[in-house]
């Protein structure tokens, strides 16, 4: 077994070979795989948690909660007989495709990460909650899990450490709300994916009422590297106060849509202009959603901002998943918002009435504005929706997420909406 001489700058994608089968267990171990887990098993669980805390790893699912802090909320005094670790691989945030690439490209990296995380919080069972349509990721993950069972890297007494960890794959049947961590827990219990009130937080009472940690796939993939190379190294590969790299992405009418692992805090300009190749010929950038459908628009004025959680929050948006959706000057803003709000309306779980009824209402107003049949007062109505369905007024984050692109579009592109009111010039249509 070889340990590499220098730690990698791009740890998450270091072993991924595009268009190739992922490394099997033997190849993965040859390239330094399962060294992180082996090292973790020789540490005290709380030491692993402290290391992750010091590394400054923040949740890559979009909320950016400190991973080590989340783990630290789990009781470690022996009071809980059963604890669970759950990987959130629902990835249904429109515009987001990073977890699929990680699972298809290097499934063992993920398995190693969730096993180490399970060890840190004292969970003996882990579940991978994977969205239904990721068939290839599911197939490769099943194969990796089977290899690990066959080589005592999963199951009873892993590598003679006394630590037992069983890992099961749950493939979903499709609903966006499953990505919300308490809704995901409901779904894993075989119920409708309805979110739960917090507190209690999952770390105290989660799956089947047991202490549970839910972490995003990309988050967990970072864990073996942090254990192996240390907190200082993890902070050194970042350009931001938060540690590590980030799988950034871009979709829309850029020259080369894709995903790239770059230092956390890389600017939006570098991602969109260097890596995505800039806009297609003849098109101009009007705005972008920095990290999925449920984040506020930013504009060309924000391109020099560092894509990290705090910087993007200060600019009035969220980094979210870091996978940008680009709006060009030939695409209808109102049409794009109508598409987004239709998505959120369809995917509301229906539990919270203002969400269930307010989102389709919003969609109808936008549909009229898109067709040039809006009424005077529609913009004020939309503005009101963004307040009534905003943070602090709803049962979960679904409706506030839906309002983020809308409130920012009304701020930056108001004239486009005004043109949709009947009797004025027709709305600009692509």
């Amino acid at each position: 077994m070889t340990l590499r001489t220098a730690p990698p700058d791009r740890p998450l994608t270091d072993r991924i070979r595009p268009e190739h089968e992922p490394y099997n267990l033997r190849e993965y171990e040859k390239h330094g795989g399962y060294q992180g887990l082996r090292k973790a098993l020789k540490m005290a669980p709380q030491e692993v948690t402290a290391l992750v805390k010091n590394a400054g790893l923040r949740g890559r699912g979009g909320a950016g909660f400190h991973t080590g802090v989340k783990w630290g909320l789990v009781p470690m005094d022996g009071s809980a007989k059963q604890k669970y670790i759950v990987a959130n691989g629902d990835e249904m945030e429109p515009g987001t495709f990073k977890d699929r690439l990680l699972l298809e490209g290097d499934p063992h990296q993920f398995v190693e990460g969730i096993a180490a995380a399970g060890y840190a919080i004292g969970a003996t069972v882990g579940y991978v909650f994977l969205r239904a349509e990721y068939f290839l990721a599911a197939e490769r993950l099943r194969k990796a899990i089977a290899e690990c069972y066959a080589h005592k890297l999963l199951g009873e007494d892993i590598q003679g450490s006394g630590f037992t960890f069983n890992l099961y794959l749950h493939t979903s049947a499709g609903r966006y709300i499953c990505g919300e961590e308490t809704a995901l827990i409901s779904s894993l219990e075989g119920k409708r994916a309805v979110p739960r009130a917090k507190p209690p937080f999952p770390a105290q009472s989660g799956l089947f009422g047991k202490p549970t940690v839910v972490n995003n796939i990309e988050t967990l993939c970072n864990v073996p590297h942090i254990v192996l190379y240390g907190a200082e190294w993890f902070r050194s590969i970042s350009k931001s106060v938060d540690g590590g790299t980030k799988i950034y992405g871009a979709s829309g009418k850029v020259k080369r849509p894709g995903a790239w692992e770059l230092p956390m805090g890389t600017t939006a300009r570098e991602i969109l202009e260097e890596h995505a190749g800039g806009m297609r010929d003849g098109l101009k950038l009007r705005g972008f959603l920095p990290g999925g459908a449920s984040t506020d628009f930013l504009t060309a004025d924000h391109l020099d901002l560092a894509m990290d959680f705090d910087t993007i929050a200060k600019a009035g948006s969220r980094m979210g998943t870091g996978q940008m959706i680009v709006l060009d000057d030939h695409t209808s803003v109102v049409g794009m918002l109508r598409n987004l709000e239709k998505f959120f309306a369809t995917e509301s779980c229906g539990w919270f009435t203002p969400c269930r009824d307010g989102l389709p209402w919003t969609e109808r107003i936008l549909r009229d504005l898109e067709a040039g049949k809006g009424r005077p007062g529609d913009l004020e109505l939309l503005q009101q929706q963004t307040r009534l369905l905003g943070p602090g007024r709803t049962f979960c984050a679904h409706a506030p997420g839906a309002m983020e692109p809308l409130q920012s579009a009304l701020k930056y592109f108001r004239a486009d909406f005004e043109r949709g009111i009947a009797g004025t010039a027709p709305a600009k249509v692509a």
Partner: protein
Amino acid sequence: MLTPEEIKEIEHELAHYEQPAAATIEALKIVQKHRGWVSDEAVADIAAKLGTSPASVDSVATFYNLIYRRPVGRHVIHVCDSVSCWVMGQTRLSDALQQRLGVKLGETTTDGRFTLLPICCLGTCDRAPAMLIDQDTHRDLESVEDHRLDAILEKYK
């Protein structure tokens, strides 16, 4: 009645959970894999197997996008209608499919070959627009010439 094979597969999944009813989604997917859809009778049979009520199983079955409570065609086409695909022209793709197949979204062709459904983001936004036919993702469908669409559909008999 559940078949012995379905029962065996459901029992395998049951073993992974503290509570039998947690395997409801797996059980629905197993039955659908074998029969194409989930009938009222299957809902009742799954409920009996998992020790829960048919109403409870049906509340789950009707919640999730990919459990079919009505018969579908031999192949199901899911065309992505989320934002990245929309920006890249998914409306053209969706219109072309509806025209080619002579059905609207949510309908099945008269020969029972295809059911056409919308679906939210397939997670392949860098190669939009995209659609899923059975378990195959088809990408880069920005310009859909008739012959290209036909060549894709031809693979599904």
